[in-house]
């Protein structure tokens, strides 16, 4: 392959930006260079950007590839181009990745893990509920599958619309889209805590809500505390800074089974997958309006305080 120029001026949606060191290898084991990564971001952006829109962005940057030291970045650097939207929150000038040029610029900066909170910048109420099913290691990935299936069964019985994706690492993440500006984090906590307690009571050998890591053993931690203001989660289709270049991949529920492996979805498989099967999160935004969470919430709010008062 011919050596690429060190700096390329490109125009994306009318914005000019420089791609630097496009042949820098970001994933040595997979031989993926920055240009390939940026191509991926551009192709996946119609599916990814809606999850970044109007949300405070946190990124993990690997400027010298995933084998080298990464760092967290919340605050927008001074040298960012003018077209990068920002929003001041808690004295941090956050990047709001609302458009493709910003996404590509971030990719050029070696931003790999893209994380966003559960609410948009103009609201302090969650836009969706997310359960993070994070087993102790990839060896116990089946615990995440088991929990996801148990939860899907519950959500179906409660007539709740739910979505699932891989974390791109060792777990699964479940989404329940909510109508905007309707429920508070205190309310969603009642629900997430209830579901977590249910899992732990049903299968105490597999699941735990124990905060202390050393007491968890091989059980999977059901982290309902993570769904809270100020907390973030990796967004759909974001890459992770692991050697295999795995993607946080939206799944069809039918794909959640014993044959599911956390390593099934590396970057180079994603675009073809979307072209063939479509995006499993296609109806995500539509379903927010259709989601009837109020019946469940009302029941829990009526029932649980009485029990605690006993």
């Amino acid at each position, binding site marked *: 392959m011919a050596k690429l120029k060190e700096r390329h001026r490109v125009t994306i949606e009318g914005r000019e930006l420089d791609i630097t060191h496009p042949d820098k290898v970001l994933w040595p084991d997979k031989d993926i260079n920055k240009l390939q990564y940026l191509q991926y971001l551009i192709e996946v952006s119609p599916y990814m950007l809606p999850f970044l829109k109007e949300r405070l962005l946190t990124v993990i940057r690997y400027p010298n590839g995933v084998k080298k030291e990464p760092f967290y970045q919340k605050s927008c650097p001074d040298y960012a181009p003018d077209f990068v939207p920002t929003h001041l929150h808690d004295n941090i000038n956050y990047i709001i990745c609302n458009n493709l040029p910003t996404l590509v610029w971030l990719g050029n900066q070696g931003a790999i893990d893209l994380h966003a909170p559960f609410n948009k910048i103009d609201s302090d109420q969650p836009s969706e509920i997310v359960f993070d099913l994070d087993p102790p290691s990839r060896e116990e990935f089946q615990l995440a599958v088991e929990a996801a299936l148990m939860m899907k069964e*519950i959500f179906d019985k409660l007539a709740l619309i739910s979505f699932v994706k891989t974390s791109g690492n060792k777990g699964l993440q479940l989404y329940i889209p909510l109508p905007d500006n309707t429920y508070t984090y205190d309310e969603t906590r009642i629900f997430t805590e209830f579901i977590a307690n249910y899992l732990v009571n049903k299968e105490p050998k597999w699941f735990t809500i*124990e905060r202390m890591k050393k007491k968890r053993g091989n059980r999977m931690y059901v982290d309902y505390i993570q769904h809270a203001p100020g907390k973030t989660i990796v967004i759909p289709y974001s890459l992770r800074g692991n050697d295999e270049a795995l993607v946080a991949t939206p799944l069809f529920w039918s794909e959640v089974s014993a044959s599911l492996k956390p390593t099934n979805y590396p970057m180079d498989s994603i675009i073809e997958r979307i072209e063939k099967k479509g995006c499993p999160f296609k109806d995500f935004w539509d379903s927010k309006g259709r989601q009837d969470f109020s019946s469940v919430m009302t029941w829990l709010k009526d029932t649980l305080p009485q029990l605690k008062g006993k």
Partner: protein
Amino acid sequence: MHTVWKGSISFGLVNIPVKLHAATEDRDIKLRQLHKKCKSPIKYKKTCENCNEEVTKDDIVMAYEYAPDKFIELDEEELEKLRKDQEGKAVDIINFVQLEEIDPIYFDRSYYLSPGDGGGKAYSLLRQSLADSGKIGLAKIMIRSKEKLAVIRPYQDALIMETLHYPDEVRAIQEVPNIPEGADLSKKEMDTATLLINQLTEAFEPEKYTDDYRTALMELIQEKVSKEGGVEAKQADNVVDLMKALEESIKKTKPKKTPATGRKKTPAQERKKA
């Protein structure tokens, strides 16, 4: 302030509607018992040793053990009738006495009195007349199924009622072991002790004294919480049953939307359980 009792005080020809509010509160730090193994709160279950079964409120009757293993049963109706007879009565101020005449050993609990509807004027009259006379009222009152002796006295801007123990509730001093009957004490010893008392004599300022043990215990708890994060108890009520109840309730509201799921065991589940 939470009302613990409602009724009236009768004082001569005056009837004063009043409410009673607990004047003091216990600030002890309550420690819970947990099962060592799983850190769940311990619950008490009432069981009948004879039938070897758990009993509920409906299975229980009250009785008095008038001789060892001999009981006379008192049903709820009989007890209720007695209570009603007593409670219907107003609190009669029987006598007036001097506060100093009552030894502190008799004092049990303190309640603030607030005037009930339309009782403001009569309340003021009793408060003012007690204050002017320097005396306190002695009364009988039925609280929580117990007839109590009580004193009513002005305290700052309010009237306060202290319940008293009956003399037979105060244990006889003769039962206390090893009380010396008087001893040979030298004048020097007495002088030294008296001097010490005088030196340490001060006006009583209750704000100066705090419960050091309680403060230290709370500090220890807070330190442990911030360091160790504590353990979360499993929801004591059966959350699995609750989930069923929730599912049922949702099913009723949306019979059509609920898909007939009944997931077969996944291979993963079978493998795990095998």
